[in-house]
């Protein structure tokens, strides 16, 4: 089925049939499998640990203990078990990133749809504002806000990450909307008297959603890394909450000549982050293959060379 023909005859989304193709895609399977394992580890992992997320076990004898059988990932400077904290951190990191991305994708899709659909002067003004937003380095803005407001609760962190993450997506959605609204099925819908709201919801939204899904998957990995970076600076998830980034912060807080002596506090949560981000990136690439047949020949590092 050629994309142009499908776009011509129907306004149905291609998300549902794509799922079947996704589970047959080898690297997508890998990505989905890793993410499923991570979610499982985050939800039930901490129950299997004999320690609690914030328990300080023995601040004299177990301070910065290297990896050993009872503590496979070692302990941090407050004698907390790092493995347990990595498992607990998975909850925070995954939840924060998923919710923030959900928020930013909603904002971005709405903004892009409206700008693309209304067009004209409004579109022009909205795009100039967007240019401004896109020019502010996100990390700098986040650091400024998080530091100046002090002790931002975790909900606030989610809102901030979400509110600064939608600019690129809305550009994408706007471009897709503009090209989709010129297609014949929109004219047909209009001809039978469909309202603007109905056209937006029933006809345009399902057609622009595929790139949003791809962008969202890639953004989850990105936001996990970003949250970890902010927490590493001590302004993301605050102590004693464990997120993957705040575990580093506790590990390196003590100064410059810090972690050569307790590298395990930095290495293990870092590996957790890299595996997670990698899984989301691989899944995002696979989703792009599956959802956007026009780019079938692009950006597939590992698979499908028969075409």
């Amino acid at each position, binding site marked *: 089925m050629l994309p142009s023909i499908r776009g011509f005859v129907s306004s149905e989304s291609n998300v549902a049939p794509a799922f079947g193709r996704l589970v047959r895609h080898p690297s997508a399977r890998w990505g989905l499998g890793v993410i499923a394992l991570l979610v499982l580890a985050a939800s039930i992992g901490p129950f299997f640990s004999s320690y609690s997320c914030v328990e300080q076990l023995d601040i004299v004898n177990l301070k910065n203990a290297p990896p050993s059988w009872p503590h496979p990932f070692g302990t941090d400077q407050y004698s907390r078990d790092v493995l347990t904290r990595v498992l607990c951190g998975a909850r925070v990191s995954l939840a924060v990133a998923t919710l923030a991305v959900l928020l930013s994708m909603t904002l971005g899709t709405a903004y892009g749809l409206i700008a693309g659909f209304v067009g004209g002067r409004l579109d022009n003004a909205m795009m100039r504002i967007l240019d401004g937003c896109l020019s*502010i380095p996100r990390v700098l803005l986040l650091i*400024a806000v998080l530091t100046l407001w002090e002790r931002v609760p975790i909900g606030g962190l989610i809102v901030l990450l979400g509110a600064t993450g939608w600019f690129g997506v809305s550009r994408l959605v706007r471009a897709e909307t503009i090209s989709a609204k010129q297609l014949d099925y929109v004219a047909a819908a209009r001809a039978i008297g469909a309202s603007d709201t109905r056209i937006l919801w029933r006809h345009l939204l399902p057609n622009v959603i595929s790139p949003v899904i791809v962008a969202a998957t890639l953004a989850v990995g990105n936001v996990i890394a970003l949250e970890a970076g902010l927490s590493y600076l001590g302004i993301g998830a605050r102590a004693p909450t464990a997120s993957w980034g705040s575990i580093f912060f506790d590990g390196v807080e003590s100064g410059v000549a810090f972690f050569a002596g307790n590298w395990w506090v930095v290495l293990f949560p870092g590996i957790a982050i890299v595996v997670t981000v990698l899984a989301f990136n691989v899944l995002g690439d696979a989703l792009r293959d599956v959802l956007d047949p026009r780019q079938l020949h692009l950006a597939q590092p590992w698979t499908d060379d028969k075409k």
Partner: protein
Amino acid sequence: MRRLFVARLAQSLIVVLIVTTISFFVIRSAPGDPFSYDAPNVTPAIREHWRAQFGYDRPLPEQFARYVTSAAHGQLGYSFQLHEDVSTALAQAIPRTLLLTGVSLGLSFILGLVIGVAQAVRRGRWFDRLSSGVLMLLYSLPDFWGALMVLLVFAYWWPILPAGNIVDQVLHDYMSPWQAFIDRVRHLVLPVASLTLLTMAGISRYQRAAMLEVLPSDFIRTARAKGLPERQIIWRHAFRTALTPMVTMLGLLLPALLGGALFVEKVFSWPGMGWLAANAIAARDYDLVTAIVIVGSIMVVIGNVLADLLHVAIDPRIRE
């Protein structure tokens, strides 16, 4: 070309104004100000006096009007933390950040483009698969963690390079010019390597995709049919065409590069803008923070304009 340039410049000016407005109001509407630090011997009366002296007691719109007027005159305010003009502090920090990001960006582009082309040419073979896997891994490394690992390996476990700062703090002043130069280079290696590895990964992924899009084109087949050597087809025909989308990528890359540089500067105590920002924010140094956000954005805007012009220069299709 000239009209395009003028129009683009006018647009950029509006963007900078929007950025200034956003950053000003975001930073000023935060609780506290430069005089709200803890100090028992500073009485509320003294704090109020200082606020009045520096205009922090005025309504926000008036403060904003004043700020924009003086910024337009090139006065970016005074840093209470460094006890010097913001422009002086920035004049020191900006070249350091530009050095770090410039060298990394150049290296990333060279390495990324070459790797991307090599992958596309050997598509599906073991080199492509292996390098794609490695690059995907690098692409997924968070900036600061990648930098921390580089620091751990090459400055602590196998200490062959200095762990931070831009020159040797003790010995640099006593070195001969040649030794001083080597000293600078040695301090540059690890931060640049960290930033380059991460940036390069993204570039080569895009270059590979762009090449794969170009290679099946008719003009490549024509070149093959003419019997041109493969090397010439790849580098003269395909590579140059695939370069066009990469120029757009350059514009999109800049904000991420500045953000990445911030973490790398922090990890390696590289006293550039990112490092300055991290310290200024903690000290609520309003004028300095505002200036850094604005200057960072201006750098991004300038980068975008340059990318646009470069785009016009190399792609005859969009020249009128």
